[in-house]
């Protein structure tokens, strides 16, 4: 099984992200692999353990994005490639999808491309579907478990009404959710390997494509309105009394 995982580097989920002069800022908090993508790496590595083959982790961005790729290697991925090109500076998700698709084609004979459900910075959640569209592959989105059955792949999806089992023919794009299982920690062996690896960098020319058009812009970014929060501790002589006071307060505040 030849597997690719597409990852993005984002600010840490603990970062305090604010809008300053229309620009997003996360202060000096570290950049990490998008937390949702860690689940995609986990799904890919589990699949590889069952089916054999290679897991290649790829990303688009500047030199610093190699750190996120190294995390992928440290978790156990076999190869990593960075796609870096000045033309990708303000790329929208469609442009990203075209480039990822070109990279997946360059890797050749890819059976599955895994994605996280969305990136915690842009929160668009469309890259997996758009990449599948460019490749002309089926997309199995928001998978909570993944298994291979001769030549096709079967995923489970948790939907509000219950659970679906969906099967798709390879090659296929899959986006995964948390239920796939906790991402593994990097191993020491992986850490040693990641720090000895040289990660090849591909430009758009290396992929044999022109800079794709970017049609979506973010003209304005605003902070959420500030909320006034006050704390109050409800006390009473018995749990019943506390519950009654609490219920009254909730009703009088018209929360319910």
């Amino acid at each position, binding site marked *: 099984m030849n597997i690719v995982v597409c990852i993005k580097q984002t600010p840490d989920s603990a970062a305090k992200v604010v809008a300053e002069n229309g620009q997003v800022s996360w202060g000096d908090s570290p950049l990490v692999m998008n937390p949702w993508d860690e689940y995609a790496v986990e799904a890919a590595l589990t699949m590889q353990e069952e089916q054999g083959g290679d897991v290649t982790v790829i990303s688009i961005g500047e030199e610093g994005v190699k750190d996120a790729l*190294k995390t992928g290697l440290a978790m156990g991925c076999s190869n990593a490639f960075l796609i870096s090109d000045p033309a990708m500076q303000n790329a929208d998700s469609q442009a990203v999808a075209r480039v990822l698709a070109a990279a997946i084609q360059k890797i050749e004979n890819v059976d599955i491309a895994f994605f996280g459900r969305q990136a915690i910075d842009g929160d668009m959640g469309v890259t997996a579907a758009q990449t599948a569209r460019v490749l002309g592959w089926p997309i199995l989105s928001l998978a909570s478990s993944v298994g291979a059955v001769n030549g096709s792949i079967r995923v489970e999806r948790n939907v509000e009404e219950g659970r679906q089992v969906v099967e798709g023919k390879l090659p296929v794009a899959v986006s995964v959710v948390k239920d796939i299982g906790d991402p593994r*920690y*990097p191993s*020491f*062996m992986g*850490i*040693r390997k990641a720090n000895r690896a040289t990660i090849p960098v591909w430009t758009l020319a290396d992929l044999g494509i022109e800079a794709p058009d970017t049609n979506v812009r973010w003209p304005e970014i605003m902070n959420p309105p500030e909320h006034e929060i006050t704390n109050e501790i409800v006390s009473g002589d018995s749990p019943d009394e506390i519950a009654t006071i609490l219920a009254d307060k909730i009703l009088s505040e018209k929360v319910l």
Partner: protein
Amino acid sequence: MDFSLTDEHRMVQEMVRDYAQREIAPIIKEYDRKQEMAPEILPRMAELGLLGICLPLRYGGQGMDYIALGLVCEELEAVDSSMRVVMSVHVGLNCLGLFQWADEEQKEAFLIPQARGEKIACFGLSEPGAGSDVAAIQSTARRDKGNYVINGEKMWISLASKAHHVMWVARTNPDAPDPHDGLSAFLVELDRPGITRGDIHGKLGVRAGSTGWISFQDVRVPEKNRIGKEGEGFKIAMSALDNGRYTVAAGATGLIRACLDESVQYANQRQAFGRQIGKIQLIQAKIAHMVQSYDAARLLYLHAGWLKNLGKRNTRQTSLAKWFATDASFEAASQAIQIHGAYGYSDEYNVERYLRNARGAIIYEGTSEIHQLIQAGYALGLRGDAPLRKELPAYDRDKWQENCSE
């Protein structure tokens, strides 16, 4: 001068932080109350490779450096001291003691399984009647037909009831003019006949860790289990302490950080007199002191780790780092409780556990009084470092990571 951590350091740090926060933080209060060590801790630490982190691959380790060891201790103790104690006794005191002093055959036999985490190791120096005064050790080892017969009791031994191996210091020469020179070190498998051991309960802190006693009654140990030469026991123990104390210093730094983080969080949320208590200058002063302690403690331990990487003697620097960080961690925990008010006084919050845990480190691996004597001794020229027959090897990344079929 370069203060930056390498990518390797950062990855190790993140991995251990994730592990401690995800797997230990949720269960630690329960085990602290039960005064038991969570059974999954040692196997999991072994599986992750932590128990051999800073040993070469050829000795079953993971090939990281001494700084990585410190970073791991900082992360572990930011969650609970009992986790860091494992690193102190297994890696710091025992494995690194073997790495420095054992011969190749002994490294094969003892160090490799320990570094892989297949065998857990502890360190038996203290006795019911001898703590700071190591030369007062009563345990004896007498030669008998190619073996030693060891008798005596060790007290306050971390992991006493969990370990497979102990580094045991006993008197081989009762007639040595200087009693320090009458001591020898042995690596003893704890399944030998004549050994009994148990845990001590009712401790103030590190309740989720194991601290116990080990008693040897006519325990026969082959000569090949003696580490170093006869009479080198004191030097070996002191070398081991140079590494154990380093892990304690790094761990206490993590404890200060935990106190700081939880104090900041609470101070930003708790209201008094119509404002957040974090806006009150007297509370700010406490936070500022924690920041000061954390940064200073961290610089001191990283400096000691850097000296170790270079293969330079670091007895003084390590002692200073340990003395400073442990005293400061107790103060930080005490002030963290103060910031939390009555809530800090209950085990609903972590800070009361931090205080209880911090207290022990001011006693073990050299009491704060002993570290003051050491520091004054260097400053007054009453003390110096004589070269050792065997020094702790300097870190060499290529050599330590070679022979990986990776």
